[in-house]
């Protein structure tokens, strides 16, 4: 009992203000990126220096996308902060295809206005201009939002720079391991530890409104499923049945979780739990391992892993129950299915000639595309624009995170600052 108490006390629920960014991002661009220019932002306010280098945030977002090559400040022939001052010839001569100018203006004690304009230099016209309010706390988010608007205008694809990722880290501390659940901006900045434990933490999953995370915790040497509200740090236990409580994933309406329960006899099956009433409905009954359920975006199906045919393969079952239908046939190992938010592609862990890699299957054509090159790649998760995935791979024994475009052309590494990083999950779009 004392042991248990100690353990409970050790279990910290912390909401620490973003200390050091844990992830350092290293781009491995593949495609030919377009030359663009983000001019340093102007500043009108009480302090001598701009409180946040807005241009640097936008610059880094666009560069990391792999689709753009921002030119260095030293190459710029002019540094306008207002659209009226842009001289297109100064940019076209450098081959720069698009230029961003803007400024930050202080309007109150903790009130600012961020404005920016994006120009097509060869077409000699403004593509988008926007002005938005910000505070010191939201300034970085505002800069990401500007980058999203710029990215969408230039590529036709919705930007995900304003989104977040959640992931788990494991660090060795003496003879013990310390597990942490982290939420950060998608660029690795602004990281918050939302939970830590001496016992493993697994399988984080975002609620559709991105305000909560479900996860599995082994505190007390048994698994249980929690849902934690990010802002407050409050959490509640959704499932603590005998045996396995695992693999939570929210329904598109946010009211239910699909989970894996094992029971006393250890027969893992897929269940749906109503979060409010805690009532559970069993969906599968096979004596094989059925696990890793996740909803289709339209809410009609639940995709899951089952080894009922021998090795693990992906199946789907109606969210109301019924007979499961096998989805994957290529290869001996396909697990952890996740549908893209647009419903067109299925990401999974696939055994590619002995290496576990991230693959996506086109739902319509069934064509399989292998996206990663590691030996132990795992936990694929789509960005909300369905265009990029994040997953975990190994670098010198430790888990690190990588992102890859869904066409496999642009891959980038996020080198971990601390410990073994695993199980990244990409948040839905933020709601303004």
């Amino acid at each position: 009992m004392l042991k248990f108490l100690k353990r409970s006390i050790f279990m910290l629920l912390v909401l620490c203000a973003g200390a050091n960014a844990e992830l350092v991002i290293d781009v491995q661009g593949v495609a030919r990126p377009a030359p663009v220019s983000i001019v340093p932002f102007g500043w009108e306010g009480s302090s001598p220096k701009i409180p946040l280098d807005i241009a640097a945030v936008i610059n880094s977002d666009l560069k990391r996308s792999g689709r753009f090559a921002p030119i260095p400040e030293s190459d710029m022939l002019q540094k306008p902060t207002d659209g009226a001052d842009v001289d297109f010839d100064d940019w076209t001569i450098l081959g720069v295809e698009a230029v961003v100018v803007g400024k930050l203006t202080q309007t109150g004690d903790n009130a600012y206005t961020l404005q920016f304009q994006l120009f097509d230099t060869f077409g000699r016209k403004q593509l988008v201009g926007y002005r938005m309010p910000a505070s010191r706390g939201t300034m970085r988010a505002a800069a990401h939002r500007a980058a999203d608007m710029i990215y969408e205008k230039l590529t036709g694809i919705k930007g995900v720079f304003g989104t977040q990722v959640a992931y788990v880290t494991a660090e060795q501390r003496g003879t013990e391991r310390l597990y942490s659940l982290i939420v950060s901006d998608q660029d690795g900045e602004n990281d918050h530890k939302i939970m830590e434990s001496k016992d493993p933490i697994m399988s984080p999953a975002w609620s559709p409104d991105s305000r909560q995370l479900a996860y599995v915790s082994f505190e007390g040497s048994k698994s249980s499923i929690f849902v934690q509200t990010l802002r407050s740090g409050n959490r509640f236990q959704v499932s603590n049945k005998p045996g396995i409580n695992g693999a939570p994933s929210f329904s598109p309406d946010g009211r239910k979780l699909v989970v894996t329960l094992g029971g006393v006899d250890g027969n893992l099956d897929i269940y749906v739990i109503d979060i409010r009433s805690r009532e559970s409905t069993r969906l599968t009954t096979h004596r094989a391992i059925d696990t890793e359920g996740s909803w289709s975006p339209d809410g009609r199906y639940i995709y899951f892993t089952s080894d009922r045919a021998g090795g693990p393969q992906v199946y789907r079952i109606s969210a109301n129950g019924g007979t499961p239908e096998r989805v994957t046939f290529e290869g001996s190992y396909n697990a952890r299915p996740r549908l893209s938010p647009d419903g067109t592609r299925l990401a999974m862990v696939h055994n590619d000639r002995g290496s576990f890699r991230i693959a996506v299957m086109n739902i319509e054509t069934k064509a399989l595309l292998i996206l990663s090159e590691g030996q132990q790649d795992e936990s694929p998760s789509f960005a909300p624009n369905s265009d990029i995935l994040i997953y975990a791979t190994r670098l010198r024994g430790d888990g690190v995170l990588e992102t890859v475009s869904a066409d496999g052309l642009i891959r980038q590494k996020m080198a971990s600052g601390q410990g073994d990083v695993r199980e990244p999950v990409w948040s839905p779009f933020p709601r303004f």
Partner: protein
Amino acid sequence: MSHLKIFAVIMLSMLLSACPKTQVPDPEPTDVTYGGDSGANTSGTDAGGFGGGEEIPWDGAEELGTIIYFDFDSSEVRAQDQDIVAAHAIALNDSSFKKVRLEGHADERGSREYNIGLGERRAQAVRQLLMIQGVNASQIQTVSFGEERPEAMGSSESDYARNRRVEIKYTN
């Protein structure tokens, strides 16, 4: 309390010399005692076995070890490990107050939640063996840590062999 310590040391040295050699490396000494965080307060370590290095009543199980290793992609208890399970069955049948937690583990290959399933399958295989030998279901609890708590941190075949295991831990 210090008696217990001395006893533990004697037990440990006996155990190390009696440990049968298998193809997997010898586990850490702390892994094969009832110590650690689970069974430190086991009441079975009474004066019966103390002094002179005589036979220990039911702790034969301990001499055999508390970790069962598994082949790749298998949840079958190997022939040479059946005796270990049998010894634990005897110990558990000896006292219905004794309880074990069977902790199933998998190697790191593949998907994490699926590996939770593989670890559970191994823990259940040991549970079934214990129950066939008369152990009451209420004395056994299973948990699977999948690949989350490796014994060996590396990624070689021999590391994987050490990580595919069930640890038998006495909780009461």
